[in-house]
Structure formats: structure tokens, C-alpha cells
């Protein structure tokens, strides 16, 4: 079975962990994230005729107190960049983070996840900005941890992109 290491990145409290919680297999407690800054989960995705095991490194959200350990990115085949759609600042932070990620780990397939899509009235990312990003080459998906919308799609899209490499 094919295995891929993927990382999940994004600012603190954009809802990364809660986004995937219902969709992945997990054996470790969230305490790992606060102590060593990462927690490992697993997701099996069907791609074409084969199953692919995604080993998901759920990396602690970056904030003023804790920077992401770039060494955790080593060897990843792709990553999810999570943004809180109701806070525009998190998108800017994500883009800045993305620069550092590319610098460290090189260019690998990635999916930009605009989370909290259920909170439409508070949505801060306009469609112009979104289409700019698409033009820049981003795979973008709106998701909701609350409803579970498009979460499976995030994984399958990233898997497809990685297999295409």
C-alpha cells in the first residue's frame, strides 16, 4: 500500500484539528500537540484502484508563542494550508507561512482550506481574492468542521495532486 506523509498547517485556532477529527484514525491524545507541537493521525484514501495511506502530521497552529518546527515538514509529499474564512488575517498569515514552507521543503502539492464555511455572514474573504489565488495555482476548498462539508474532498484532492507528481 502506498503511504504519503502530509502535513496540516495554519494559524492557531483556524480549526485544523477539529476539521479532520471525525475523518481520521487517531491513537494519540491532543496533548502531544501542545507538548511537542505535532500529533500524528492516519487517513486512508481511495485513489483510482488503490488505497493510499496518508500519515497526517497535524502541526500545532503557529502563534506568537510557538513557531512551527520546520523540521517536521521534512519528507512530506503534500500539505493542507488551513485558513479561518471568517478572519482575513489568517489568510495573510497562511500565505506568509507558505513562503517559509516552500523555502524549507520545496514545492509540493498543497490544498488551501478555507474553513468555517458555515459562518457565511461573517465571511471575510471575497471572491476576487479567491480567484486571484486560484490563478496563482492554488487548489482551494471551502470546508466546515461543523457540517463536515468537503472534508473528504480535501484529502482526495491532495492525494490526486500528489499521485500526479
Amino acid at each position, binding site marked *: *500500500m*502506498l*503511504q*504519503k*506523509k502530509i502535513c496540516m498547517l495554519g494559524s492557531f485556532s483556524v480549526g485544523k484539528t477539529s476539521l479532520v477529527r471525525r475523518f481520521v*484514525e*487517531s*491513537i*494519540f491524545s491532543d496533548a*502531544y500537540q501542545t507538548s*511537542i*507541537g*505535532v*500529533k*500524528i*493521525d*492516519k487517513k486512508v484514501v481511495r485513489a483510482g484502484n488503490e488505497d*493510499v*495511506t496518508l*500519515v497526517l*502530521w497535524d502541526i500545532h497552529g503557529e502563534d506568537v508563542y510557538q513557531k512551527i*518546527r520546520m*523540521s*517536521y515538514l*521534512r*519528507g*512530506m*509529499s503534500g500539505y493542507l494550508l488551513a485558513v479561518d474564512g471568517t478572519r482575513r488575517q489568517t489568510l495573510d498569515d497562511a500565505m506568509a507561512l507558505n513562503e517559509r514552507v516552500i523555502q524549507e521543503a520545496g514545492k509540493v502539492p498543497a490544498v488551501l482550506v478555507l474553513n468555517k464555511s458555515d459562518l457565511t455572514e461573517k465571511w471575510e474573504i471575497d471572491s476576487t481574492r479567491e480567484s486571484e489565488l486560484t490563478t496563482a495555482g492554488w487548489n482551494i476548498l471551502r470546508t466546515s468542521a461543523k457540517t463536515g462539508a468537503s472534508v473528504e474532498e480535501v484529502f482526495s484532492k491532495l492525494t490526486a495532486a500528489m499521485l500526479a507528481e
Partner: protein
Amino acid sequence: MPEQAQRRAPQGQPEENPPDNNHAYEELRHLIVAPEQEEIADIQERLEDRARRAEDVSSVVAEAISMRCEKKDGERALAKALSPTIQETLRESVRKDPHVLADALFPMMGPAIRKSITETLRAMLESFNAALEHSLSAQGIKWRIEAFRTGKSFGEIVLMHSLLYRVEQVFLIHRQTGLVLSHVVATSVSTQDPSMVAGMLSAIQQFVRDSFDSKNEETLGSLNVGELEVWIEDGPDAVIAAVIRGHAPPDYRLAMEEALEEIQQRYSSALENFKGDAAPFQSADELLSRLLATQHREPVGERKPRAALATIAIVVILVLGWIGYSSYLLWEWSRFLNAVRGQPGIVVISYDKQGGRYHIRGFKDPLAPDPNALLSHAGLNPNNAEFDLAPYYSLDDAIVVQRARQLLHPPEGVTLSEHQGELDVEGTASPRWIAGVADRAILIPGVATVDVSHLQDSHLLQLKAPQSAIESVFLLFPVGRAELEPGQENTFDQTQKQIRDIVAQAEHLGEQTSIELIGHTDSTGIEGTNQLLSQQRAEQVRARLLRGGVPPANLRPRGVGTTQPLRTEDTEEGRRLNRSVTFKVTFTPTSAVN
């Protein structure tokens, strides 16, 4: 000053002879030496131009080194010259990127280090094993005490001390991605998802590397999780992690290193080009399994049940021994008490045991044996018993007989026996002892009646034979006469002697002899005459005996006529024997007489 002079001298020389207008000479010289001069200039240029010089040297440097090496001591000189540079080069290389050298040296350094460590460890382990083996029995007890003291299980203590362990899982992890390449598990071990565990191990490795020791790229060698240890062996492209229950010996690390080296070598290109497909590493399972199988040891628990059994056996033996000994003592004591109870002259009213000592209360006849002596005789310690026995008169037959014996002093030949108050005295004794025995015996406590009917007078017994001899004599007389028949003199003399003897003998024994001289007649004649005649005959014999020296006190003559015929008178012989004097001898104790 001399310094200036010296410096000026070379400058001044060409100035002293300038080529004044000597153009022709100059031209000539040019014609002659120009080619050489150009050549010299070219050489000079080559020497001065570093790039060209380097180019020149580069074409011959290898040959030059070879040539130098061939010379005597050349190799050493070269090494000496080059070593600072090489050292500096290596230092610089490591400073820049330690991976390059580390990766290059990895296949070579592993075995070298391992060999050296193995040698050291072997010596250490050998002595350790020997010590362990030699002291196993005593050790076992010590461990048990330790287990009891620390509240841990004995198994844990054994595990702790004898380095027993079990490798439960082995992971082969791709170093770069943290993805699991291969995973083997010991039988009957439950595991978590290996891909997540491998990922987490990598994350922890990274964390430790980042946090503590990022410079040397040294990583975590082991993790402790309760009873489990995770040993991690880090290679350039792959990592082996072994999950161990207990404490593995140091040489297990060598086995891990060897396996990792082999994997690095065998799968070098697969590791380098790994894109998430673990299929090429399936064959590594066998290598990893060997790590499981060869290092898995059964706990050396064989002695455990044996030691436990021995301990139990000892305890059982001790308990049984104690019970047996106690029972034996109890049995001995009850036997002793029964013996005491059965002992005539002792009555046990009660007994109890206080502080290991028996206290016995009751009564004891003064004639009964000492109970302490009985105790010693039974093999028991007299110090363990205390007797509180009041004196009394026992009516036990044996004691009564003993008491009678003590008071009556029976002479030899007399036996005493007693039954229900009747004392039987049997045997032969002197008439003096016999005379008082009945009166004295009746006073003895326990004696109600006395039977002396079976007592015989020893004196009478001695005198019986001569008495019979005398009493069988017939002194015969003729019809109608009071003179002895002729021919009776001898009989008379003999009888007289016998009488003298028996009187003397009886006197010696304290007996007074009384001899009746009984005169008889036959039935012829008239009765009145016969009576008289018989009296005369008795008197006649008495007179003769008196003359023969027999004391008169002993003789009592009397005539019985025909009243006591000795024979029937059918024949002449019968009538003859009735015309006679016969004797009747009796004895009386002298004291009784007095």
C-alpha cells in the same frame, strides 16, 4: 651604516658602467641572445602567473607524489607535510556539513566501533554471568526478600536483576518521511497502528533533535514508557526502532546496528528513491524478525518453582516437625501421667500446664516412689514438672504389704500378701516371731484380718525327725511283768540316747521338751491289774531313764492299760506289741514356759 652600504652596493653596480652610446653592442647582443631572452621572459611569466603555474603543476602532481613516495622515507615526509592540511580539510568539511563525512564513514565506522565495544562488553558480561550463576540460589532468596520489601512482584525483580527482556515489535522507518517501511511483531503482542506509531516516533526524534542537540544531529537512543523501552537506531536513510519489554543487554544494540547497516546497504537505492511504496522493503521483514527472534529469550524462571517448592517443603517439614515434636512431648507427658496415676501410693487430683511447666497436685504415700525419679526414668526433664503431693496412707495392696513388711520385719522364708484388708503370712519362722506376728499385724493401717495358718514353726521342723524316731519305739515287756523283756536293752539304750539328744537340741532352740512315757498291757488278765501294770511299766522306764541322765522334768509317765491298744490282738505278735511302753514327744517354747 654597514646596512646602508650593503643595500646600495647592488644598485650602484650597473650605474658604474653605463653603455654609453654603444648602440652597436646592444644590437649585437640582441641578435645573439634575443631568442633566449624571450624564452626567459616567457618562463618568468609562467612563474609569475599563478594560473599557468597551477596548470603546470596539476599535470604532474600525481606523478610527483608517486615519485616522492618511492623515495626512501618519502612517504613519511609527505604524510607529515600533508597531515595538517588534511586535518584542516576534514575539520572544515565537518563544520560545513557533517553528513558528507558521516555518510561516507558510516559503513566503515560501524563495524570498527562495534568490534571494540563487543570486546569490552564480552569481558564484562562473562564476569556478570558467572557471578549470577554462582550465587543463584542465595540470590533467589535475596530477590524474594527484595520483592517483599519493595512490594514489586518477584517476576519484576528477576527481570530487573537478570536483564531479561522480550522484543515485542520492530519498526523499520524511513528517516526522511517518518513512514513505516516494515513492521514485525512478536507472537501474542497487541499493537497500535504502526504507521501512526512510526510517525510519532519520528516526530519525537525530530523534537528531541531540534530541542536539545541539533548541532551534532545526534538523536534519541531510547525512550522509556513504563515497563517498555523503545530503542532507536538511527541510520542515514532509515531508522530501526525496537519496542522492548524489560531490559535488553547492551549487545542487543549491536544487533540493531548490524541489521541497520545491512538494510542501508541492501536497500540503499530504494531508500533514496522512496516515494511512499513500502513493497521493496517486504524482504526486510526477515532481517527484522531475526531481531525479534534471536533476541527473544525465555525468562530464566525454572528455578523459581523449584525454589518455591523447596521453601514450601522446608516450611512444611518444620511445621510437621514442630507438630510431631509437640505431639511426642504431649504423648510422653500423658504416658507419664498415666504411669503416675497407675502408681500405687500416688493419687493425682489435677494437673495443668503453665508456662511450659506441668503442675501436678494430689496425694502420696510415704512408701510410694519419688515422682521425680519416675520422670527421669521416662526420659522427661524433671525441671519441667512441679509436684504438690500431700502425704496419706494408701490402702493399695502393694503399699499395705510394703508397710507390713516394714513393720513386721519378716524373716527369710516368710512371704506377705494382702488382699482387701486380709494379710496372709506364709512360710517358716521361729516360734518367737510367729507368736507375736498376728497381734502386731492387726495394728498396721490397711490390715483388717491376719491369716497365719500357713506359718510353720521352724524349730519343730528341725526336731521332727528325731521325734518320729523316738515315737516309733516299742519297749516290750513279758506277760504280767513290769521288767523289760530280755533283749530289749539295746533298744532302750539307743532310745535313751535319742531322748538325751532331742532334749539338748530343743533346749538349744529355746524349746522345752516334754516326753510322755505311755505304758500298755495286753487284754489278758483283769482290767484293774492291767491299769496298774501299765503304770508300773511306765515308771520302770522313767526310773531307768533318770538313771541314764535324762532330767526328770522332761518325763511324764502314765499307764493306759488296755484302753489304747496299739495293735489288734489276733496274733501273738499283736499281743506282744501291746505289752509295751511308747513315747509321745511335745515341745513348748522356753519363753512361754517362763
